[in-house]
């Protein structure tokens, strides 16, 4: 069941568009902010709330890179795989994450703490290599800096 808060946020968002369904992408993100990911049941409820079929909303949800349709860890590490980051150290960061933290793209750490995801160019090319840790930009990364960032995540 969608919570009262989720319903209210989605309804508010829908008011910004002449058609309710236009709010569907933001609605999926609202659910994701509350629950970490968008489960089938939640997706069906959002579809009903916005007057869409479940299949249609799933088609939208699976189109966008940042709508997560399966459970993830408590924290997200988005490592930029753009060409400027690749040039300046991303492969070494990736190797380090796998060797020292058993983190591969799309995989959540055994303790459920962090999920590593690839992301296209983050627009931080002048400070490569870069990543987002729970959405916040981290730049000029080194394996040592990644260790520090990961150790800080509760």
């Amino acid at each position, binding site marked *: 069941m969608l919570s009262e808060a989720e319903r209210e946020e989605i309804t508010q968002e829908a008011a*910004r*568009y*002449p*058609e309710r*369904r*236009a*709010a*569907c*992408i*933001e609605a*999926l*993100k609202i659910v994701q902010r509350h629950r970490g990911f968008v489960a089938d049941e939640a997706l069906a409820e959002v579809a009903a709330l*916005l007057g*869409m079929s479940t299949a249609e909303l799933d*088609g*939208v949800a699976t*189109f*966008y*890179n*940042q*709508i997560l349709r399966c459970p993830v860890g408590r924290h997200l590490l*988005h490592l930029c*795989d*753009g*060409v*400027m*980051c*690749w*040039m*300046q*150290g*991303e*492969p*070494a960061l990736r*190797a380090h994450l796998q060797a020292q933290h058993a983190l591969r793209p799309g995989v959540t750490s055994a303790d459920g703490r962090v999920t590593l995801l690839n*992301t*296209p*160019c*983050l*627009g*931080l*090319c*002048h*400070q*490569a*290599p870069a990543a*987002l840790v729970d*959405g*916040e*930009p981290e730049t000029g990364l080194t394996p040592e800096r990644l260790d520090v960032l990961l150790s800080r995540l509760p």
Partner: protein
Amino acid sequence: MSLLDNHPLTGRFRSDGEAVGLAEYERAGGYEGLRKAVKSLSPEAVTDEVFKANLRGRGGAGFPAGIKWKAVPPHPGSACYVVANADEMEPGAFKDRVLMEGDPHQLIEGMVIAAWALQATAGYIFVRFEYQRAARRLEAALAEAERAGYLGSNVLGSGWSFDLHLHTSAGRYICGESSALLNALEGRRAIPRAKLPRPTTAGLWGHPTMVNNVETFCNVPHIITRGAAWFVSVGVGPPARRGGVDGGTKVYTLSGRVNRPGWYESPMGTPLRTLIEEHGGGMRTGYALRAVQPGGASTGFLAPEHLDMPMDFDSPERFGVRLGTGTVMVHDDHTCPVGALHNMERFFAQESCGWCTPCREGLPWVEKILLAFEEGQARPEDLEALAMHTRLIDLSTTFCAHAPGAMAPLESGLALFRDEFERHLREGRCPYLTGT
């Protein structure tokens, strides 16, 4: 002389990296353009000024904004939308992020002036998912602007109302294609629409819709405040195809192994060499420049002997490349050019919307062949297979410009790095250790 004379777009930026707030923006002449437009210029006069300035779209195509604005038909009593394309996902590009984070009111003012010119009823700023800092700053600036009467009902007492909303996307490069962006805004899969009718005639929910890039909008307040003649006088470009000259400044960005990567606002038409050697401080010690992509991943490679190329919209065509977004990527001699191509083609293959066959099937094929070169599995005939794709994938065979854009670096790369491809074949491996 104020900073705004040479750097109209970034001259107000704060040194601490925070966003310029409303009071600060107003003190530096902010919202004067909007006040002038609404109080003393007719909507048609505003459009004419932008037309005369020959402001060319900063999103990559360089289409004159004035012509696009004039294409919006009269729409009495009906909805009309103005949309800022802030879905900046071109690998190498970050100019729009810089502009939104540094001076969010400048974008808002540009959009409201455009909306006045078109008598639009509402607007959306379409920001990519990952630009959360820019989105937060825009949200705060929108609230400030609304409280001050620059937005919402009865803008500056004119009797005209305009609502401007922030839309944050969910991550997909194709959303930057303006008709795909409209589908995304309507809550659909971001698949490009047929070329006709144009969005200016039938866009969002079937109503006239004018989509411009962030940087394009940011130029508008300055054109209205200072006039088209001033704008044209700033540029250093040669006469453009559509009459007049490329005017104004450009926010160029620079990345790769140069001494000072970053963003640089400079007159339109600044030579690439000036950007790399003066602004960027040249190559880092131990690295030599191998090639440059002048405007992001979907622009071709330029050989080092052409660095004097002016960075305006028309000159790059003489060198077989495009200005694109003016976001320069420098490739050095320690980086495998085949690997760089593989990285970029993997991105284009992943970000294909899947709608048309040459893109959906062709790009993954290209990516697999390039990977085979990197892994030492390629055969000599694979070079011809790559070349075939550059011939078969073009604007006449695909639905939008996504896959043709992906072919630009491949086509020029095949010509420029032929010996590197052959070296991969000969050695049966990638001879570089890029990024490790």
